[in-house]
Each structure stands twice: as C-alpha cells, then as structure tokens.
C-alpha cells in the first residue's frame, strides 16, 4: 500500500503542479479531471480487476490511481493560492524561472500539499480495504469477508476496529511529520 501511495502521490503532485502553474494545461485537463474525480475510486476497482487481474499489481495500481486523483486537488489549489506578491518580489530580486518554481512557489505551497498528503493517506487506506473486500485473498478486507463467510461476528468487529486503529495511527504519524517540516510556519506566528 505504501509503495502505491508514494508513486501515486508523486504523480498527483506533479500533475497538480503542472495544472496550477501552466494555464493551458489547467484549461485542457480540468473539465475531464473534475468529471473523473466525481466517480468514487472504489467504482474503478471493478475496472482495474478486469484490466489487470485480482493480484497485488492491480491493487497497487488502483491505489496509485486513487491517490494521484485526490492529490491533484490540494496541490493545484495550493499553487493557485500562492500570493502574487511573493512571485513579484522574487522576480524583482532577479529570480530565474526555475528558481521561481523551486524556491518560491513550491515553498509557499508546501504546507497545504503536506496537509493534502495527510488526508490522502485515509483515502488510500479506504481504497485498499475496498479492493480487498471486493476481490482478494489477503489483508484486513479479506479477513472481514472471511468472518462474513464463517458467520463470525467477533472476528468481523475485531477486523473493523483494526481498520480504525491503523487509520488513526497513520493520521497521527502523518500529523507529526507535517509538524516537523512546517514547524517554521508556526514559529513565525
């Protein structure tokens, strides 16, 4: 799951940056993207099963897809909302275009991109559970389905609590990491 998450996050952030930074791509991609985004990632699980089978590969691909789709939004908005003043100031101080992107725009957008990464962690977690519930032979989702087949309520509730626990831990870890890397913002305040 984490591999899929990392790859998906990188793809999503790159597309988000391109969409936020270059107007023409924004205009070309946004409508289709908004349409595709409206479809719950879980609905794509069935399609991915048909295309890539029920193995580990299709699980990772569906996570890559879901995470990339979700990550585009916060990245895009973060870049769009970078105050123009920053850009103008940097230009006045003689920044080159490549520096403008790497040192000014990305730095300013970083906190919100990290926040997006944090909430996307939950999405990835939900999608992997769904994919396992629909078709798999391993994992917590399968554990719940197995409890369903064997009419084992206790095991099922245990599985559900497990999902909650892991989701909660992921969130706590993510917020710790975010605090570490964007601590400078709070210190300034």
């Amino acid at each position, binding site marked *: 799951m984490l591999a899929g998450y990392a790859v998906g996050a990188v793809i999503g952030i790159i597309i988000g940056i391109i969409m936020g930074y270059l107007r023409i791509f924004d205009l070309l991609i946004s409508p289709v993207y908004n349409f595709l985004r409206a479809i719950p990632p879980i609905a794509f699980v069935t399609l991915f099963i*048909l295309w890539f089978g029920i193995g580990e590969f299709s699980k990772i691909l569906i996570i890559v897809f879901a995470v990339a789709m979700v990550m585009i939004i916060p990245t895009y908005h973060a870049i769009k909302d970078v105050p123009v003043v920053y850009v103008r100031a940097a230009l006045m101080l003689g920044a080159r275009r490549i520096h403008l992107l790497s040192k000014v725009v990305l730095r300013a957008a970083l906190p919100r991109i990290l926040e997006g990464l944090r909430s996307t962690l939950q999405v990835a977690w939900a999608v992997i559970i769904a994919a396992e519930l629909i078709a798999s032979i391993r994992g917590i989702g399968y554990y719940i389905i197995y*409890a369903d087949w064997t009419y084992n309520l206790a095991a099922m509730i245990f599985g559900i609590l497990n999902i909650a626990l892991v989701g909660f831990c992921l969130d706590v870890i993510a917020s710790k990491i975010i605090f570490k890397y964007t601590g400078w913002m709070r210190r300034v305040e």
Partner: protein
Amino acid sequence: MDEEGRIDVSRLKAYLRRISWINAASFLASFGLFIALYLIISYIAKSEFIPYYPELYHWFLRYVREGWLQSSIIISVQRWIKGYIAGSIVGIMIGIVMGLSRKIEEILTIPVVIFRFTPAFAFTSLFCLLFGATEFSRFLLIFMAVTMITIVFTYHGVRDIPAKYIEAAQVLGASNLKMLRKVILQAALPHIFDGLRVGIAAGWTTIIASEILAATDGLGYLLITGRQFANVAVLFIALATIGVIVSITDIIFLSVRRYVLRWMA
C-alpha cells in the same frame, strides 16, 4: 474592485463574459481531446478490454432500451437522497451538541474517532449479518458515512465560533433559542456546508461500494454485472453514468450553498 473598493459593474460583466467563454472553450477542448485520445487508443489496441465506440454505443442503447440504466439510476439516487438527508440532519444536530457541551464532547469523542477512521463500507458485511442484505442495512451504511463526516465538520465549526459573538449576543439579550438559531447556526454554517459537500462524495462512495458488495440493483450492481460478464463497455457506461450523476449533485449543492451563504460574498 478598484482602489476605493467600489465594484466597476461594466468591467465585472466583461470579465464574467470572458471567463464563461474561456470555460466553455476549455470544457469542449478538454472533453474533445479526451474522447479523441480514447478513440485513437481503442482503435489501435483492438482489444475487447478497451472497447471501440460502436460497441459502447450498442450496449448503451441496449441498456437504455431495456430500462436497466434508468432503473439503476433511480434506485441509487433514491438511496442516496434518503441516507444523505437523514444522515446530515442527525450529524448536524450531534455536531452542534458536541460543540456546545463539554460533557457530551468527552463522551462522544472516542466513538467518533473510531468511526471516522473506518471507511463506512467496511461495515457492509457486519450490517448484512445483523440486518440482512436489506434496504435498511444499506440505508444505515450511507446514514453512518454522512453522519460521521457532518459531525466532525459541524463540531469544529461550532467550537471555533469566536467567543465574542456569543458574548455580544448575550449582552444584547438573546434568548437561548435565538442564540442557537441566529448566532451559533449562522456562524457555523460555512463549516457545516464544507462537511455536507464532503458528505456528498462519502455518501456516493458508500452507496457504490455497498452495491458492489451486497445488492442486486443500483449503479454499483451495474458495475458488478459488467465485471462478471467481462464486458468493459458496460463498465464504462456505468462509470460515466456515476460521474455524470455525482457531478450533477455537486453542481446542485454548490448553487444551494451559494444561495444560502450569499451574505458571505
């Protein structure tokens, strides 16, 4: 807006016209590009897993003529409306109570955290065991998904109301009921609407998932039939339908929000 903060109406109108023109153009160009790309790929691939358009058209016509598509849409939308309305009302009420009362906040925090970090469809099989694969258990799933999200957003909205609003209302002699309606609800409304919007997506996700996992009708079941007969055309049709319907609900929601929150603009 110009320097003194007045709005120059004629310039605003020209701006709006330009924006909508650009939007329409980008909409057309984007979908055109997308469809063209798909046609080229499917034409080159010649695979049954990437159906060329005559096949899509054929299955679409067939599903519409036999009424499956329409009935699936109606069933799923009905489920969504029921679960969403009930869930959002209960969620808002619990959220307000949680935001106002310290004691209830302490009691409810742990259950809310547990449910919030569990995707609602993980409960599908549990509810199927408890209540059977009935309409009620599906309703409960959607209800739960929407409730949890609206609770979290409403709670934060109510908790973050600046104390000076409430104090000012008290000084001006507001009764409790009036305070609730005119101050607390109003001030928390933007947050509540954020929650409701996230709830739309969560509700749809849950419906689709629960229909995939345990149902014999609805849009999620359409996906399952497509998968069982390895018919990618049906899958595409179902996915596109879901996309259109969710987009429509979102657009309706946004216009309602713009109307209710018009004082904010």
